[in-house]
Structure formats: C-alpha cells, structure tokens
C-alpha cells in the first residue's frame, strides 16, 4: 500500500466500485437492512395485515347489503362489495407502508441512521431510490399475505391476475413511497408527521375509488367526484384493480407514472445538498437540535 501518497492513486483506491456491481451491492444492502428491520418488527407486519382485514371482514360485510355495485369495468358480472374493495385495500396497505417507511426515515433522521445513509459516496438520488425499492419490497410481502387471506375469504381474481398485478404494485408503491419520501424531507418532527398521516392518509383514502365506485360518488356530489378523479390514489387503486382482472387502465397508468416521477423529483431536490430544504432548516440534527438563535 506504500506509494499511494499520490493523490490520483489515493482517489482510485478510495472510491468504491464504480461499475454496476458497486451500485448493486449498495442497493442490495439497503433492501437487506429494510428486510431485517421488517422481520424484527413483527408488530408492524401484524398491524399492516390486520388493518385491511378489519375492513374486509367487518366493514365490507356490513356494507354488503347497503351498497349495491352494478356491473362496471373491469368486472364482467355483478360482484359482492368485498370483491369491489379488495384492490382498494391492497392500495391502502401500500399507502400505509409508503408513509410508514418515510415515518421511519423521519425517525432514522432523528436518531441519525439517515445520516449514515447520506454519507455513502453513491449519488443521493440513487440512495433515495434504493430506499424506495426497499420499501416496495416490504409492501409486496404485506400485499402477498393479504391476497392469500382474501383468496380463502372467497375473493378470487383470475390466477394470472396475481402475476399481472405485480408491475402495477411496483408502480403504485413507487408513487406512494415517493410521496412519503417527499413528506419526510419536509417535516422534521415526529409530531408533525403524525398529523400529516391524518391529513394525508385519510383524505387520500376516503376521497378515492377505494371504497365506492365513482359513479356513486357523483350521485351525491359532483365536487367530491372531481376531487376523487384528480386524486392520484384513485388511479393507484384503479391500476391495481384492472391489473388484477388482466386489463390495463391506461389513464391510471399514465397518472401513476407521472405522479411518481413528480414526487420523486421533488424528493430528490428536497434532499439535494445544494438546493434542498436541509440546508435551510439545519437538516437532520446530528443529535443536537439546532435551536435557532441559540448561538446569538
């Protein structure tokens, strides 16, 4: 190792594997850690599973009689209400997972683990994207478990639908995860974030096609109908719904991809060292909160 004093050589030695393999090692490591953390948080898995099941077993059963669902695409026959809300509940799992993993990022940032991620020499957009991929991987496990239980509950989309829904889940997971990422860069405090959960999750979920078909919403309020139509979550739900029944809802596909790109871009900008919010706000506290005016 002697003779490395020359700067160029030091650099060559110090920089991590620049090729694809180095990036792959980094991505794998981030997904692997998220998986390990997930395994250690059994409570998180359980609540991620129980939440949609409560809706499915209790809410849907109660509303089965009250809500008639006529034949609407992609369905070809009359369907039971629980069949209708199943894709919405799948999207709900991803919504919670996306915001929860960003909640853990706010927490990570407070305990400093986010800083360990951000001192990695790989580009920041890549680190954030890897974090998203890790979150999606975890959400796929949750959705898989839910689909199995729903199957035994009698909700059985075509067998190939389980395969076709995978790309839809990746896209919706990307969109919802990127939303979470963006929110995590904007909000520093857990308390703030908890209220964001309420202000983001509930409106997004209820003002969407997850629980009721939009034609029904229009009957009661045109304004609400419009809000639902412009809610990206509606399109995540519809993308998943159509995919499960082996169809593509092109409008929803376009909206989900477009929204994911916008959220991701904003998140990368927010975390950018030069332009980002961190520089203005004092960033993730390295243990010590930066109290404005304290140094005066």
């Amino acid at each position: 190792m002697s003779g490395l004093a020359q700067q160029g050589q030091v650099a060559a030695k110090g920089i991590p594997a620049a090729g694809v393999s180095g990036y792959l090692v980094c991505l794998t490591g981030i997904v692997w850690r998220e998986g390990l953390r997930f395994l250690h948080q059994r409570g998180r898995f359980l609540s991620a599973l129980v939440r949609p099941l409560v809706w499915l077993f209790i809410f849907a059963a109660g509303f089965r009689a009250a809500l008639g669902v006529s034949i609407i695409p992609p369905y070809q026959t009359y369907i039971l209400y629980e069949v209708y809300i199943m894709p919405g509940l799948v999207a709900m799992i991803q919504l919670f997972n996306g915001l929860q993993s960003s909640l853990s990022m706010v927490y990570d940032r407070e305990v400093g683990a986010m800083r360990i991620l951000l001192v990695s020499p790989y580009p920041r957009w890549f680190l954030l994207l890897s974090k998203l991929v890790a979150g999606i991987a975890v959400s796929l496990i949750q959705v898989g478990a839910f689909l199995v239980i729903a199957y035994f509950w009698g909700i059985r989309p075509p067998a190939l639908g389980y395969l076709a829904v995978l790309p839809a889940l990746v896209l919706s997971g990307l969109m919802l995860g990127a939303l979470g990422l963006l929110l995590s860069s904007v909000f520093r405090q857990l308390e703030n974030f908890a209220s964001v959960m309420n202000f983001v999750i509930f409106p997004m979920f209820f003002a969407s096609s997850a629980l009721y078909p939009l034609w029904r919403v229009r009957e009661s309020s045109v304004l609400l109908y419009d809000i639902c139509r412009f809610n990206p979550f509606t399109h995540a739900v519809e993308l998943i719904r159509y995919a499960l029944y082996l169809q593509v809802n092109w409008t929803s596909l376009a909206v989900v991809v477009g929204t994911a790109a916008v959220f991701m871009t904003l998140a990368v900008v927010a975390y950018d060292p030069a332009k980002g919010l961190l520089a203005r706000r004092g960033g993730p506290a390295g243990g010590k909160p930066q109290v404005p005016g304290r140094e005066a």
Partner: protein
Amino acid sequence: MARERSASELALEVEAVSHSFGSRKALDGVSLQVGEGSFTALLGLNGAGKTTLFSLITRLYNSRSGSIRVMGHDVRQEPRAALAALGVVFQARTLDLELSLRQNLLYHAALHGIGPRQARRRACALLERVGLEGRETERVRVLSGGQMRRLEIARALLHQPRLLLLDEPTVGLDVGARHDLLAEVRRLVAEEGLGVLWATHLIDEIGPGDQVVVLHEGRVLASGSREAVAAQAGSEDLLGAFRKIVGLPQAPLTEATA
C-alpha cells in the same frame, strides 16, 4: 500497511467556510486544517457551530461559501472521492439496535459498495481491533454505551478512510469508557496515520502535542498546538486560555471544563 506520507499532506482542508440558517449565521469564515497522522481537537461550547461544520464536511448540505477538501478532493466537486476517504462517528447513536453487530457493519459496507465477503473479513478484523471480537452475532442492544461507540468507530473504518470525524463521541460515557475511546483513536492516529478531527467541549480530552481549533459563535478564534494556543492567550494552561479566548469568567468551573 505502512503509508508514505509527509507532513504537508492534508487529510482535511476547510477554507473560509460560512453558512447561515435563514438570517442566523452558524459559521463565519471558518478555516482549519487536519494533517494526516494528526489529532486535531475542535474545541467549542455547545452551539459553537461544531455540528454544522460536520454537516458541511459530510455533505449533508453544501456551504454557502468557501471550500472543503478531504484528501484533496473538493466535497462539492468530487463528492464521491471525498466521502469515500471520510469516516464519521456522529454524536447521536446511529446503530440499528435490533440488528447484530455484524449486520450493522455489513450494511455500512454495502453503502460503500463493499461486497459481503470482503466486508465480513474486514468486520472481523476491526471488531478485534476495538475489542469486540467474538460478539458478531449479538444484538447491538446488549452493548454498553462505550462498546457501541467502539462499534461505531469500527464501522467508520470499514471502508478504510484517511480522515476520521468524531462529533463529541464521549457524550454520555463514564470516565473509564471515555479514556479507552480516546486511547483507541489516538492509536489509530499513531499507527495508521489517520487524520482525526475530534469535536469536543471537554478540555481534558486534549493531550500534549494535539492540535487545537477553538470555535466560538461560528468563528475560529484560535488554532495551533495545545501549547501554542495557551501561549498565544497568555495562559499557563489550555483551560485558562479557552476561558480568555471565548470570554468566560476565569473562576469556578462551568460545564466547559467538566
């Protein structure tokens, strides 16, 4: 593993760095240098701007003005090379408590593009070095505060950096653990020729021959060897010099000296 180096080689160069949060100026024209094989203490009270400076060096965000170079690589222009040559121990604990020692180290190695096989080998050697050998599979949660810090140092060294930053690493440790930690880091400086920037508000952590940079309210008020800083201020010891420099009353001890 001996490295050729000369005194002129700088692990860290901070030049005229200023940074503000809104209207509050956190750093004002800060310049300092850390040579390879040198232990430099960044001495300042709470809120002096130490953590802000660390955030800039680690490129959490960019400075508004001035430049920062790690092993000659500008943090803004060549972030990859700069970050690769840099190891950090943050003030807050940044370990995953539920994961094992080895899992924590492998995760960090992956963040630096080091594959599992090589990472395992290095992790093994480093754990031995910091006195945690044979505990690879234990959960971090069972470690004491001092052991966690030593694990964090091992982690910071995994990718073989030439500059090690430590932000008040002894906070919350008892006297014995503090002493061990300091001895370990000094050994790294002497044996491996690492440049170390050690932020602290504890004067008794600074030994003879150490470099000292006094940071106060975002400005560097004095720098040089411990002896030189004391002499400049016209004091017999560093404590008196520090009090004079930052304008603290000379008598009873305050937390700066604890």
